[in-house]
């Protein structure tokens, strides 16, 4: 075992900086590497990684991040987060396609609007707790698609047919996408994976990816800062010991509604990101299946951790995708067909609840602390 580095020491900070730089480089290069639908074949099945899928996973990470605030951090079982995500997606979609706003400017409406919405939603949550809240939010999630299909709003929302958003997200001319591509193409080894010029579609996909990554990073950064402070401590106190929190002067009502407000606002941003990504919103995409999927992502990744949201987003995007692409049982030619993805996610959910209650994030942390131990700062410094 390596010697532990002391937290906050120069060495530790150096290591953190190196870690972040590596992370940034990977995030920046990945889109070029997988722009032409990277799809490895394993045991006779072709699996797509696909830039589009990755972008969608990023949007889902933000959705889980939002759910994490109400459920993971402040402990209020919300099975209806899809409602906020869907509302955000539809708000953006309608504003972009009907009123010709840009996606980013719709955030100016989505964020405060959904925050307010979350606060209103949080008001009943003051009286309704635990399982009952789960019950209510579950029902609310199931009802979203039928609200979208309502006759009064169907002419705006597109009703059952969904809404194709007419907007072109083209990279600005100054973006050096081609230069980077050529440059990467020249690197031996990796270079062969990179096309030596991007088609228009690929350029758009890469550009969208970067937009989504930046939005996601801003969300994660903001949420991290909120949670690191007073507010975050209050949330955790509400989750772990509501009576104690109230006794020590935490205003339960205010913080509970606040957590729903922030949770919904972040969920709304995730909705905008999903709409941006696919250029289409349909009622059933935001039904209760999404709500459950987000819970799966939360638990599998690790409830109450930020890394968990990242892992969870990747999991709920790729597990169903790859299992639907597994058309023969690996190594054999037994044909598989049907919605295995959901079954596998369900199995994963149960397995994680059973074996790794902290989720994947907890598991990673344990492994990391083995490989690269960090000792807490000694007291008195």
């Amino acid at each position, binding site marked *: 075992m390596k010697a532990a580095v002391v937290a906050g020491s120069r060495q530790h900070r150096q290591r953190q900086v190196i870690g972040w730089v590596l992370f940034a480089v990977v995030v920046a290069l990945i889109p070029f590497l997988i722009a032409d639908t990277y799809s490895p074949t394993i045991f006779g099945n072709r699996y797509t990684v696909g830039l589009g899928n990755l972008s969608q996973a990023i949007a889902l990470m933000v959705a889980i991040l939002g759910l994490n605030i109400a459920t993971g951090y402040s402990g209020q*079982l919300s*099975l209806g987060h899809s409602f906020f995500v869907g509302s955000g997606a539809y708000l953006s979609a309608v504003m972009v396609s009907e009123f010709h706003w840009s996606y980013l400017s719709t955030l100016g409406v989505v964020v405060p609007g959904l925050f307010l919405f979350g606060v209103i939603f949080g008001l*009943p949550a003051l*009286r*309704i*707790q*635990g*399982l*009952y809240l*789960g*019950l*209510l939010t*579950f*029902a*609310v999630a*199931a*009802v979203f698609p*039928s*609200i979208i*299909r*309502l*006759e009064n709003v169907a002419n705006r929302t597109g009703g059952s047919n969904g809404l194709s958003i007419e907007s072109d997200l083209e990279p600005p001319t100054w973006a050096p996408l081609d230069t980077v591509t050529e440059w990467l193409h020249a690197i031996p080894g990796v270079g062969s994976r990179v096309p030596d010029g991007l088609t228009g579609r690929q350029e758009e996909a890469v550009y969208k990816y970067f937009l989504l990554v930046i939005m996601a990073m801003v969300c994660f950064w903001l949420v991290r800062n909120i949670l690191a402070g007073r507010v975050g401590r209050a949330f955790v106190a509400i989750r772990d010991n509501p009576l104690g929190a109230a006794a020590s002067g935490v205003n339960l009502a205010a913080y509970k509604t606040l957590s729903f407000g922030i949770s919904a606002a972040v969920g709304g941003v995730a909705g905008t990101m999903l709409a941006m990504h696919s250029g289409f919103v349909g009622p059933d995409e935001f039904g*209760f299946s999404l709500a*459950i999927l987000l*819970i*799966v992502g939360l*638990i599998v990744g690790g409830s109450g951790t930020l890394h968990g949201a990242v892992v969870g987003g990747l999991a709920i995007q790729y597990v169903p995708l790859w299992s639907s692409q597994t058309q023969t049982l690996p190594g054999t030619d037994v044909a598989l*067909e*049907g*919605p*295995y*993805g*959901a*079954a596998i*996610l*369900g*199995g*994963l*959910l*149960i397995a994680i*609840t*059973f074996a790794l*209650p902290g989720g994947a994030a907890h598991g990673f942390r344990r492994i990391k602390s083995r490989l690269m131990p960090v000792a807490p700062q000694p007291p008195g410094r």
Partner: protein
Amino acid sequence: MVLGALTWVLGVFDISLDKLSNGELWLAQVFRGLSDGATYASVALALVMIYKSTGFINFAQGSLALLGVYLVYVFSVEQGLPVALAVVCAMVASSAVAMFVERVFIRPFPPDHVLPLVIVTLGLLLIIDSAVGIVWGFRTRSLPSMFPSGAPIEWGIAQLTWRTIGNLGTVFAVVGLLYLLLSRTKVGLAFRAVSSNLESARLVGIRVGPTLGFGWALAAAIGTLGGALVVPDLLLEPSIMLRVLIFSLAAAALGGLDSMVGAVIGGLVVGLARNLLVTFLDLSELALATAVAVILVVLLVRPTGLFGSTRVERV
């Protein structure tokens, strides 16, 4: 002025006075509401069984019922058994599945930690629903009813059909039998003791695990029966029980989550409310939303429902 306001309200909801004053239409919707309500009541009963004994809501209850209904389909349409017999066979089979599920997925968790258990039932929901999709596909099928078609009593468009009578009769019979089972038999006593105080139930020698397994089996059988009542009105396909689950949750919440009588009355009220609102307010898309509104209002105004007992929630 009052009259003005009234006309305005009617106008907003597109309510025609013709409809409102049509007695036959009222009666027709009442019958239909009772018939639907009976089916919600059965699934709500199943939810209440689990809630009473374990203190959590089994979100996979609808999925177990879904599986049961597909088994009814297999036994009746594919194997050619008479429908009533097929329903009984499916009830037995789905009980067996539920006992297995309880043994493997539920019992390993400490029974007093509710949250992980709720998460596990969500996982079960995903697994069972997709298993049904994998085995039977997404093609819609029609399922015969246990009861003859036709209506013995008719007033114009209002028909009291055999099916309505059968659904109601079945639910009341189930409640009666359940009551006898729980209050007059030893296994019923064990079940209620476990629901009331888990630790003391252990101390008097009740085998808690099998008793809870029995509760799951019973709940699954009742849920399957409920599904077999509801599906003939609709078409059988893998997502059918979700809506039923929502209405049943509303019914159970209205009745008080731990009251069997409450579940039945809740089911009937939700069924009636749904049919009357949909017809007279023209809210066909909002049928589900009415259920949610019921849940919300009940939980806000009277969290213990109409008949529930106050009980400290174990979360």
